[in-house]
């Protein structure tokens, strides 16, 4: 049953912006699907609002729509493109939900568009928790006892039947949004209410808690002919109760006998058949009671998922690619296994190594967020490591996380043992981002396996592995370091740095003794088959063993260092650049080598590079590869801060760094050297000082003048950056900062209040500098550039001002000798240009700019770094589009109860969307829609702004009233609005008592919120913002944002809403 002949065109829906629970794994799967289907000669239509994806590169699909992912937009696209089929299973929950909406609204039938991969009844059976439960019972499988509730009254009945503790799982949300465990009555009621709000179908499943049971996942594939294979089994180290996205997971399953594993496998086959997923991959989760082996089915995702991306990387079996082929008619046995070439994809991968995935959290970015893990996912990224044993892969995974860990460092403060023990018991019992370190500490202090299990319910097998690792620390610290020493401890995953810590010496000294002893890593292949057949794709990992099976080639090579785990401030945008670099240089005749440890990415697809090293991005791991591969050059400027930090050490070790020199990078990063350069060039920057210590900071800030912008040096994503209004706040900040990092000095700059911020991306080959794009921020300077909306081309900057920006950019690029990409952030204040930051590397905005102007900047930059000239490439002049592209950010506040949604200098967004149209207003409206901020067309708008902002209120208030909105405001703002001659309803602040504004919001009276916080950021305005977030009301915390929203609303009300493919925008 080969390719269906009746399909000519396929619509593929992506997953939209990166959010917690839905990250770049769907770019990986979507990109694979697009490529696979185009290879089949199908016309591909792609919709995704996220410009930072590889899949939205205009050359990938035939028609690429970067448009808001709503029913209305999709309907328009389907009407225009008339695809024969819609593949909804590779774009995460977003795509699946949209497909359901399209089917239910009759759009698919109307335009004769077939759902392929999974049809509606199957999707519903898997997604609707009640239908799923019935299906499981029908085929004789156990599920936790549960009931569905649509209301508080339902929930009371359920409670009476099941008793606490209970798990609340909202239907059809992603990453467990709104899910929780309730252990007490009050808690239960509140959590049910919250869950109902979060569910698009206003439905929650309330289920008996199987907290503490072992958790497993199977990745299942099925074809039209009903052939079914299990691609991978995954065991969660963290037992049930922690969302699998937040769990440490291990592949394959470690603690099941064959009999038990086969029971699970049989169940999985029955499930995929009963649910009726026609073709493609599904993920099924099981829980097993540790003492009896009793198995219950938890849930099924009838689509490619985060776990299937992990399973693909863990086994070498490309699930999404194969799922796409299956959807258009192929059978599993008709598709060859890419890696072995001679054998078919219809088999079950067997692996001869152990894979460990550890999630990456960023609780520190959200003041007030609690580091506790539960059924709702909170991690923003993950690292995966491969080792020949679990211990090796676990320690490799720890150092891949880039949280400053190189192994199981003790996190115990100097304390008496008894105190520590009591504290550790609590820490082990409560899942958190550092629980495994606490476990290690407890085992160090002699806690037994039994006690550790009782507290944590982590399987004894994993506990033993951690105990083995910490159990040899004394020997690692003391024994003489000969060959035998390294041959014993390196295979356990001990990094040189961790050995150095234990021996209180330098990493370099350990490394040189290890080399002297002749102990070097060897590299083995991920080959799907346990070496039974020859592998043709060099997908490699290091270990310490006998044989190296992947000797380097003699070709001219470029090594590209990836970005490691996603985190806020460093995500998909950097992976996008790495992928482009690899593809461009491959085309340019180089052998490309990618080093990365992020399983979600496109860069770690073995198709992207000639050689993939799935390795941690530490100096030890990278230098080992560089030394054997001896590349012509290494690209460190594309993967974000992670590889950039390695630039100097690698250069010192004699590794050639391509493009802009590490010294130039340092000149831009080092504040003193940077100041010197700026003043020598006669350019301006906000007055700033470098402070070491509290007194220094106080005098410095006074000199600069409040408000000041303060941050530690050497940070990405504005980590710990704040606007400080006065000395009192400064004392608080500095005291805290010195506790966490005393090594780096603090930067204190004058804060240019109300300044317009501009980002400029440029490319240089050392001879000429070409501007990629000038982006004007919507929010004023002071909101992190990664969080603010921006427009390309600029909407308010004069031609002269733009020329000045270009002049300064050229000057800085030449001065630094930039070869490759560069990004500069400017502030326009009082008609003058100030330089805020210069980054001689790929920036977060590169993919956005590339999509907006239709030029693959990262690709060109890679070629330039490898020696090409821009004139040879044919990119010598700036391309200013005639349309407008607006980037808007999306935020994870919904995941962190109790956290303020206010924007500031510290980056908090997880992802971005792009709106593109003829005018700024419409592009902004599209971007807002895409960021799921549904701009209203009528209703009551609540306005409450601080005094400073009242000067900007008039056009906004007038605009709203003109369009027929009514206004409501608290005292001060209300008086101001009335003074403008407009009608405005008065409402109490929360502190003034009910009925107050939050009551009004909860009653559904408010359509939109404009609220800029006063300097003290009172509890009052906090609860307004938080309520708006929870009720999904569009809310604006800056006047600039509000003004843009008003323009957007006007555009939506007065102009037709059109969709247009990227290919049409860029048709020259």
């Amino acid at each position, binding site marked *: 049953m080969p390719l269906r002949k009746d399909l000519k065109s396929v619509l593929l829906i992506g997953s939209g912006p990166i959010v917690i629970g839905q990250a770049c794994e769907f770019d990986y799967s979507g990109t694979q699907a697009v490529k696979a289907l185009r290879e089949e000669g199908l016309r591909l239509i792609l919709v995704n609002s996220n410009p930072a994806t590889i899949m939205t590169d205009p050359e990938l699909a035939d028609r690429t729509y970067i448009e808001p992912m709503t029913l209305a937009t999709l309907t328009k696209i389907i009407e225009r493109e008339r695809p024969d089929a819609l593949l909804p299973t590779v774009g995460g929950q977003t795509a699946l939900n949209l497909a359901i909406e399209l089917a239910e609204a009759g759009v698919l039938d109307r335009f004769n568009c077939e759902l392929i991969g999974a049809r509606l009844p199957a999707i519903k059976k898997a997604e609707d928790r009640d239908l799923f439960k019935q299906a499981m019972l029908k085929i004789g499988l156990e599920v936790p006892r549960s009931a569905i509730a649509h209301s508080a009254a339902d929930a009371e009945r359920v409670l009476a039947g099941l008793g606490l503790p209970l798990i609340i799982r909202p239907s059809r949300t992603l990453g467990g949004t709104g899910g929780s465990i309730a252990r007490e009555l009050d808690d239960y009621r509140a959590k049910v209410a919250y869950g109902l709000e979060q569910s698009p179908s206003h439905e929650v499943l309330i289920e008996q808690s199987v907290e503490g049971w072992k958790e497993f996942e199977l990745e299942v594939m099925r074809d039209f002919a009903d052939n079914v294979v299990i691609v991978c089994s995954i065991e969660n180290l963290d037992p049930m109760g922690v969302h699998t996205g937040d769990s440490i997971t291990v592949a394959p399953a470690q603690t099941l006998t064959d009999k038990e594993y086969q029971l699970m496998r049989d169940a999985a086959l029955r499930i995929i058949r009963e649910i009726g997923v026609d073709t493609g991959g599904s993920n099924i989760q099981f829980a097993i009671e540790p003492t009896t082996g009793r198995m219950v089915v938890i849930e099924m995702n009838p689509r490619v998922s985060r776990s299937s991306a992990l399973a693909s990387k863990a086994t070498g079996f490309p699930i999404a690619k194969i799922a796409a082929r299956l959807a258009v008619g192929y059978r599993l046995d008709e598709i060859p296994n890419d890696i072995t070439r001679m*054998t078919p994809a219809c088999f079950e991968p067997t692996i001869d190594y152990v894979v460990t995935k550890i999630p990456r959290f960023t609780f520190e970015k959200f003041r007030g967020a609690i580091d506790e893990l539960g059924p709702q996912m909170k991690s923003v990224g993950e690292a995966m490591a491969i080792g020949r044993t679990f211990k090796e892969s676990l320690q490799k995974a720890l150092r891949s996380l880039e949280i400053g860990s190189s192994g199981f460092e003790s996190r115990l403060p100097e304390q008496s043992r008894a105190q520590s023990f009591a504290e550790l018991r609590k820490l082990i019992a409560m899942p958190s981002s550092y629980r495994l370190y606490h476990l290690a500490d407890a085992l160090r202090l002699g806690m037994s396996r039994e006690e550790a299990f009782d507290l944590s319910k982590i399987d004894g097998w994993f506990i033993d592995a951690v105990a083995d690792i910490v159990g040899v620390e004394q020997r690692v610290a003391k024994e003489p370091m000969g060959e035998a020493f390294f041959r*014993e401890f390196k295979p356990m995953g001990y990094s040189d740095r961790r050995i150095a810590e234990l021996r209180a010496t330098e990493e370099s000294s350990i490394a040189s003794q290890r080399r002297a002893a002749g102990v070097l890593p060897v590299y083995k292949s991920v080959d799907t088959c346990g070496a039974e057949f020859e592998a043709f794709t060099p997908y490699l990992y290091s270990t310490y063993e006998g*044989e190296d*099976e992947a000797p380097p080639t003699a070709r001219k090579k470029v090594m590209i260092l990836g970005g490691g785990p996603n985190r806020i401030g460093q995500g998909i945008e950097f992976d996008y650049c790495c992928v482009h670099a690899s593809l461009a240089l491959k085309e340019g005749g180089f052998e490309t080598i990618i080093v990365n440890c992020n399983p979600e990415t496109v860069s770690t697809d073995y198709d992207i590079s000639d050689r993939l090293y799935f390795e941690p991005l530490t100096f030890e791991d990278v230098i080992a590869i560089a030394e054997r591969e001896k590349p012509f050059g290494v690209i460190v400027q594309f993967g974000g801060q992670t590889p950039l930090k390695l630039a100097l050490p690698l250069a010192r070790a004699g590794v050639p760094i391509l493009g802009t020199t590490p010294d130039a990078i340092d000149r831009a990063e080092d504040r003193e050297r940077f100041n010197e350069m700026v003043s020598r060039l006669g350019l301006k920057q906000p007055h700033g000082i470098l402070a070491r210590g509290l007194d220094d900071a106080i005098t410095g800030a006074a000199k600069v003048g409040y408000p000041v912008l303060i941050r530690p040096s050497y940070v990405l994503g504005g980590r710990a950056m704040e606007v400080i209004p006065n000395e009192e706040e400064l004392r608080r900040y500095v005291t805290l900062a010195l506790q966490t990092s005393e090594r780096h000095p603090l930067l204190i700059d004058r804060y240019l209040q109300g300044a317009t911020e501009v980002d400029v991306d440029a490319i240089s080959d050392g001879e000429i500098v070409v501007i990629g794009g000038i982006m004007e921020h919507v929010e004023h300077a002071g909101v992190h550039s990664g969080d603010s909306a921006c427009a390309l081309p600029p909407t308010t900057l004069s031609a002269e001002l733009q020329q000045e920006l270009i002049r300064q950019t050229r000057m800085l690029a030449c001065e630094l000798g930039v070869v490759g990409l560069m990004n500069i952030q400017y502030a326009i204040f009082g008609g003058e240009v100030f330089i805020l930051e210069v980054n001689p590397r790929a920036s977060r905005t590169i993919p956005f700019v590339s999509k907006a102007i239709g030029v693959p900047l990262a690709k060109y930059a890679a070629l330039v770094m490898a020696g090409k000239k821009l004139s040879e490439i044919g990119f010598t002049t700036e391309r200013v589009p005639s349309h407008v592209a607006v980037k808007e950010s999306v935020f994870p506040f919904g995941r962190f109860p109790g956290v303020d949604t206010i924007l500031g200098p510290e980056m908090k967004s997880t992802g971005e969307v792009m709106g593109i149209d003829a005018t700024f207003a419409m592009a902004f409206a599209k971007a807002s829609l895409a960021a799921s901020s549904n701009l209203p067309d009528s209703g009551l708008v609540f306005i409450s702004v601080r005094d400073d902002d009242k000067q900007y209120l008039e056009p906004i208030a007038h605009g709203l009233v003109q369009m027929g909105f009514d206004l409501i405001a608290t005292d001060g703002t209300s008086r101001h609005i009335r003074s403008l001659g407009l009608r405005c309803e008065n409402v109490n602040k929360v502190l003034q008592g009910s009925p107050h504004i939050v009551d009004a919001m909860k009653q559904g009276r408010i359509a939109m919120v404009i609220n800029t916080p006063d300097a003290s950021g009172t509890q009052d305005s906090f609860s307004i913002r938080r309520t708006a977030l929870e009720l999904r009301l569009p809310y604006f915390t800056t006047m600039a944002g509000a003004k843009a929203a008003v323009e957007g609303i006007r555009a939506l009300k007065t102009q037709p809403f059109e969709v247009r493919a990227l290919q049409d925008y860029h048709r020259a």
Partner: protein
Amino acid sequence: MSTKREAMLALADGRFFRGRAFGAIGETVGEVVFNTAMTGYQEVLTDPSYKGQLVCMTYPEIGNVGINAEDAESRRVFVDGFIVKEYLERPSNWRSQMTLGKYLEEAGVVGIEGIDTRALVRHLRTHGAQEAVISSIDSDSAALVRKAKASPGLVGRDLVKEVTCQEPYDWDVGDWELASGFRRAKKETLRDAPLVVALDYGIKLNILRRLISTGFRVKVLPAASTAAQILAYNPDGIFLSNGPADPAALPYAHRAVAGVLGKKPIFGICLGHQILGLALGGKTYKLDFGHHGANHPVMDLRTRRVEITAQNHGFAVDSESLKGRAELSHLNLNDKTGEGLRGTGVPFFSVQYHPEASPGPHDSSYLFMRFKRLIEAFPRFGADALDRIVADEGAELR
């Protein structure tokens, strides 16, 4: 781990690997083969088909689930040596009763850990399965290589006589279930059930259990039973089991099977399949490194459906040699070797792989039901019975 005793694995072609001893201390010789199943080492250890072989597990973490009383595939350990990357001393599984090391030690089986098993597998893949020695008492690699070279190998050897039962016996235990363990068949059910005589060339217990759960009465006979002895039980069907080493070295078995062919429905697995091939006058040959694992795709050529199968064999039937006498029914999609035979005009079928699984997937268990249907149809349709029931199976296959 540094305190553990050293051990060595030496191959006949001169390659050797250093590791650490576990299980019994001593020295052992045999053909080294690799198994790619990620679960089920206890089943592998106790599979009589591994007699004469040193088994290397490609999955690196072994010992993790310990040993229990339920997962043995025969009365004792039959591998002659065990090779792993990392042996885990402390198992974790609710059914575990003993460590793997202790189990091997009690069975007197030499194990070696700390081996670069992937390098070993790659070597075997390119140089073929071969004789080898594991020793934890001799560290002279040259001497060990000599011993490996001197080992007789499997070709032409009858190891069946070392693993088969001595006397006929009845079997009445069926499939394993999680909550209740093994299910014993009720006497009254057995009384009315059709009788299958199973020839024990080294039979795995799960075959017997599957036969019981399929609804048969089961009598197990020693491998050397003659056709007359078999027919004396007046069985409704005859089952030919798996077993070790070279099928060509068992002339008595070929004779016995040739003597019952056509008289009763026959179902053969693995060695039983090869013996059937030889009894029909076909040929068998040795594969380079065989199939040992739980992930091999096999296509049923009639339905074109693919089963993921458990495999354990080093020899195979040359299907070309059987043209006209039997039809190739199943094909291995990895290397296109024959995986099943169906009699043409004779009521038998056989597979090279292991539908009883254990360890491995259960995709092929439909074959036991096919055997039952064949037995039921045979009295009515005689020689045409197989064609009839295979045609009827249609969509019910799984």
